């Protein structure tokens, strides 16, 4: 049984008259102990999907149009505020992109971690436990650090504190929304190592959001590629990186410069990422797709399982395959 | 005498002792030092604390107060006072005649900065003393501990009135010298009350003086004065029973609420009225054309509808036909003055060559009554072609402007008497010899040799009747020459609670709190 099961989630922003569909009929599962990555360009709906898991998207302006989000088989979207609070932190914990902005600047980090403990493990809400957590995420001299304010820590440390805070409630699922984008490469590598290590030790599931395919290669078990509010390709990480099937995934991988490669020119995807609410008809990628056919602008294709565990949203995925 | 004054009291039952009188003042009294305080508002409080040698009875006659008796030498230059025995200051010491010498000398001493030194400059040797050429004033002597002799440099019958002014209230030398500049905070006098508490700008409390030994009995246990707020506010507090007297200003009741009170039978019972010794006028600067032309000035008088002005003030006054107000000795009932006659005004203007009218400005204080009057006068004058620019100003600037030579063409304001003698109006306000470039009280800058001569003669005349006659003659000329627009003489009012009893209104001492009592 999946720990998290998103079924046909559709979410819109704005009033019902001028609604903009940010997430469209999205389905995704995360099994216990699994690391799933979501990749895609800016604004394609990754964060909104992630936040929906604990119903954290403010409504309004957002509206859940349809679908279910089952966390341990209970539908988050139909929960009361009190029930939600047990899910938030209790089952699903978050680590956000900008650690500096996500820690409350006016409280000591020890207090902020303890706050989590008090909510979900009141018995363990002690300084010792806080120190243990900080040590767990590799903060040196944790005993002294608990009295620090967030601004007194560097970005990498702040991110570790965030992770410690997320772990405090011993969640089953850690949702990390671009946890390393704001950090330097060397620090980013440290954080990714930490996540992988924690997952192994604590056996939790991770839903990791990124637009860096390198990170995917590093950490993911499965990958969901999103484009314009939809999942266009869903596959085991290794397979996907080896042999992307959707034209968008393929183009994306080609447009990334690779260290040590000798290409003179990068392959580009023509055109721009479509704006929210201005999605093209039919297949949303067709205006930029090199393999687009006549009917791509009319028929929106469904996500089809082309191999076991490999789903692609493209009718012509077979074209050009070797 | 003091005992007589009780006869002037309204009230059926015997006065009761005790109780607190609750009053309100718009602004703090400037000082409780009799040498400094020179505002009508602070005088009633000075009376609580200090007494002097002379006082007025209900008919404005001078009577001995803390003097046993007094006389003026036939040449009118030497005043002799004999002190009542056993009068004590509130610090317990008995008063000696020497204290009066000190008191008067103190006023003349420039260091004191008394605004009243002018009243006593007539004492022999005052000038030398003021200029620092003599250590003492020659004209002040105390041959016996209970005898005070004052010698003047020229005969002056009006000097007796100075001795009844609060400036001449006696103060003890040792206390003044102890506190010096701060004497006002520690007032010590011979009055029936002492200062209990004075939170500047907030409140003032008086309690009984244990050493008081005067002839009149005072009944109130305490007097409490709230400081701040305007008259309307005080009236509201009065109506809610928070005050015993509505307003202790001469107006007594704020103009806007007067009619309402008159129409309210309950409130009306507490309202007392009497003519005030004051005149409202517009001075016309006789040195500035076209006001240097007497016809123009007369025209301004004719152009002003005094009845309407009085109506604007809810009929709280009578039209003025001359300078002197009715309660003043020497008031001339025969003066006709100028009635409202715009046709005549136009005609006079045409004669003077101003058929088209002219432009002028009226300075006035920016209080309600003045503003109202000025606005009405502006409209009146515009009927005869005189275009007026109104120049309202706060008191300090108003005075600066109107007392400066060739500056303000017209100035609207009242003159209240200091003492009941025509010289207090005529000499001060119309004597050409007193014209100075700044701070000139002769705001019309009126200079008529004949008038000057009459006024000089009157001032030094030792005969009361002759004095008054000379003043009458001078006033006739002044009215004829019209350096003022004579407006009206206001009434005095007092609105008090039904339980408050005490002496009637008095043109010089409107409020004599020390003689009031609360009827339970």
């Amino acid at each position, binding site marked *: 049984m999946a720990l998290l099961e998103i079924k046909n989630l559709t979410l819109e922003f704005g009033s019902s008259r001028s609604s903009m569909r940010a997430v469209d009929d999205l389905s995704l599962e995360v099994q216990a102990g699994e690391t799933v990555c979501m990749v895609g360009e800016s604004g394609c709906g990754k964060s909104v999907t992630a936040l929906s898991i604990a119903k*954290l998207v403010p409504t309004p302006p957002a509206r859940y149009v349809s679908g279910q989000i089952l966390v341990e088989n209970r539908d988050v979207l139909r929960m009361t505020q009190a029930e939600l*609070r*047990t*899910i*938030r*932190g209790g089952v699903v*914990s*978050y680590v*956000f992109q900008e650690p500096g*902005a*996500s*820690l*409350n*600047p*006016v*409280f000591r980090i020890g207090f902020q971690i303890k*706050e*989590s403990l008090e*909510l979900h493990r009141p018995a363990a809400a002690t300084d010792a436990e806080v120190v243990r957590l900080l040590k767990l995420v590799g903060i040196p001299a944790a005993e002294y650090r608990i009295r620090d*304010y967030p*601004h*007194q820590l560097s970005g990498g440390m702040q991110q570790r504190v965030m992770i410690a*805070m997320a772990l405090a*409630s011993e969640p089953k699922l850690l949702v990390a929304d671009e946890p390393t984008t704001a950090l330097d490469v060397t620090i980013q590598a440290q954080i990714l190592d930490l996540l992988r290590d924690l997952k192994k030790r604590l056996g939790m599931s991770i839903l990791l959001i990124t637009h860096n395919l390198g990170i995917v290669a590093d950490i993911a078990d499965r990958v969901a590629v999103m484009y314009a509010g939809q999942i266009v390709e869903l596959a085991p990480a290794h397979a996907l990186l080896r042999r992307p099937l959707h034209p968008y995934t393929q183009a994306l991988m080609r447009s990334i410069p690779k260290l040590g490669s000798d290409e003179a020119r990068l392959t580009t995807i023509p055109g721009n990422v479509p704006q929210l609410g201005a999605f093209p008809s039919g297949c949303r990628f067709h205006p930029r797709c090199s393999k687009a056919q006549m009917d791509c602008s009319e028929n929106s294709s469904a996500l089809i399982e082309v191999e076991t565990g490999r789903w692609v949203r493209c009718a012509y995925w077979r074209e050009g395959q070797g | 005498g003091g005992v007589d004054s009780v006869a002037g009291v309204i009230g059926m039952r015997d006065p009761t002792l005790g109780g607190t009188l609750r009053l*309100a003042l718009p602004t703090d009294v400037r000082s409780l030092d009799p040498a400094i305080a*020179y*505002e009508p508002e602070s005088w009633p409080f000075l009376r609580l604390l200090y007494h002097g040698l002379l006082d007025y009875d209900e008919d404005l006659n001078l009577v001995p107060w803390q003097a046993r008796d007094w006389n003026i030498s036939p040449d009118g230059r030497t005043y002799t006072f004999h002190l009542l025995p056993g009068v004590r200051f509130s610090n317990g010491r008995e008063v000696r005649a020497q204290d009066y010498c000190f008191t008067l000398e103190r006023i003349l001493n*420039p260091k004191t*900065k*008394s*605004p009243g*030194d*002018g009243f006593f400059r007539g004492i022999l040797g005052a000038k030398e003393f*003021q200029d620092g050429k003599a250590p003492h004033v020659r004209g002040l002597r105390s041959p016996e501990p209970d005898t005070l002799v004052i010698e003047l440099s020229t005969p002056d019958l009006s000097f007796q009135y100075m001795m009844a002014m609060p400036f001449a209230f006696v103060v003890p030398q040792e206390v003044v010298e102890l506190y010096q500049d701060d004497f*006002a*905070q520690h007032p010590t006098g011979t009055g029936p009350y002492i200062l209990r508490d004075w*939170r*500047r*700008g*907030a409140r003032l409390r008086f309690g009984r003086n244990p050493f008081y030994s005067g002839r009149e009995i005072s009944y109130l246990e305490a007097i409490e004065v*709230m400081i*701040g*707020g305007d008259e309307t*506010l005080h009236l*509201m*507090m009065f*109506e*809610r029973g*928070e005050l015993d007297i509505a307003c202790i200003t001469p107006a007594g009741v704020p103009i806007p609420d007067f009619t309402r009170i008159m129409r309210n039978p309950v409130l009306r019972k507490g309202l007392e009225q009497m003519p005030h010794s004051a005149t409202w006028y517009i001075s016309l600067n006789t040195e500035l054309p076209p006001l240097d032309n007497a016809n123009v000035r007369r025209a301004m008088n004719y152009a002003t509808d005094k009845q309407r002005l009085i109506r604007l003030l809810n009929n709280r006054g009578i039209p003025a036909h001359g300078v002197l107000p009715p309660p003043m000795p020497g008031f001339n009932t025969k003066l006709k003055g100028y009635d409202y006659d715009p046709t005549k005004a136009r005609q006079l203007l045409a004669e003077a060559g101003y058929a088209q009218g002219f432009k002028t400005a009226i300075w006035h204080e920016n209080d309600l009554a003045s503003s109202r009057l000025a606005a009405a006068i502006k409209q009146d004058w515009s009927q005869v072609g005189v275009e007026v620019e109104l120049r309202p100003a706060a*008191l*300090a*600037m108003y*005075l*600066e402007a109107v007392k400066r030579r060739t500056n303000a063409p017209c100035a609207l304001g009242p003159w209240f008497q*200091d003492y009941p003698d025509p010289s207090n109006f005529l000499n*001060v306000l119309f004597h050409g010899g007193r014209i*100075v470039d*700044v*701070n000139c*009280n002769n705001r019309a800058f009126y200079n008529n040799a004949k008038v000057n001569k009459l006024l000089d003669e009157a001032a030094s005349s030792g005969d009361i009747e002759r004095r008054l006659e000379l003043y009458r003659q001078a006033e006739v000329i002044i009215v004829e020459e019209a350096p003022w627009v004579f407006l009206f003489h206001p009434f005095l009012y007092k609105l008090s609670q039904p339980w408050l009893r005490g002496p009637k209104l008095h043109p010089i001492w409107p409020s004599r709190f020390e003689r009031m009592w609360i009827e339970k």
Partner: protein
Amino acid sequence: MNVTLTRLSSRLLWSVLVLLGTSVITFFVAHAVPADPARTMAGAKADAETIRRIRHEMHFDEPRVQQYGRYLWGLAHGDLGKSYVTNQRVTDAILTRLPATLALSTMAVVFWMLLAVPVGVLTAKFRDSKFDRTVLVLGTIGLSLPAFWLGRMLQYALAYRAGYFPVAGFRGWRHLLLPALTLVILFAGYYARLIHSSMVEVLSSDYVRMARAKGLSEIAVLFRHGLRNALIPVITVLGMDVAGLLGGVIFTENVFALPGIGTLALQSVFNLDVPIIMGTVLFSAAMVVAANLGVDFLYHWVDPRVKRD
């Protein structure tokens, strides 16, 4: 610690300079008024001779600069001079007026913050709701009322007519209720608005989302995590307003006849009582300067980020 000390001393130095500048300008502006303080002392009727003597006694006939020098000399010795009108020491004059102003300001600030904080937070939470819009309109009306007009109306209706409150004066805390209410009406809406917009920003911040993601209750999210951050920008405005109030609540004090700094300042201006004018202006300037310092320290307390730099 040392850094704080140097910072403090440099701030103090600047404050002194500001006060000095204020004193120069006030002194010369006050003396630019065409009126003679000597006559103020002598009263309306005094003759020219008396006034001349007083001018001389008071050194008013000296050059302006010399008079200012004399004033500064006194100031340097802690002597603010004496009132021309009442001869009271300026320091005493201010100190006797301070309690009324202080009590009124404190009461008003406490009440309006008690009102504005929950309203501001809740309107931010329920943004664009009917409640929010009503508060916005009421708040706008509140800050659009002329203080003296509102004071008079309240006084008339609630004190004079209904008798719920004393009409005026200052004999106890009950006398402060109505003036405080006036100030609350004037300020509460504005502060609710201020807190609202600051709170709206805070509510969209990442750490509030984080607090929700932790599973905190909405009350804790709003008032523990949100409010403290939302108050940070409000502190500056509040500091300046409190300074302004302490410098004299001119209209409200005037309407309710409260013996405060405002009435003192007002009267001194009308009387051209230069020492008191200087005193009250310097006092309110000192309040502003002190408020700035206070705000700085409050910032440190509320916002730990400031401490480092």
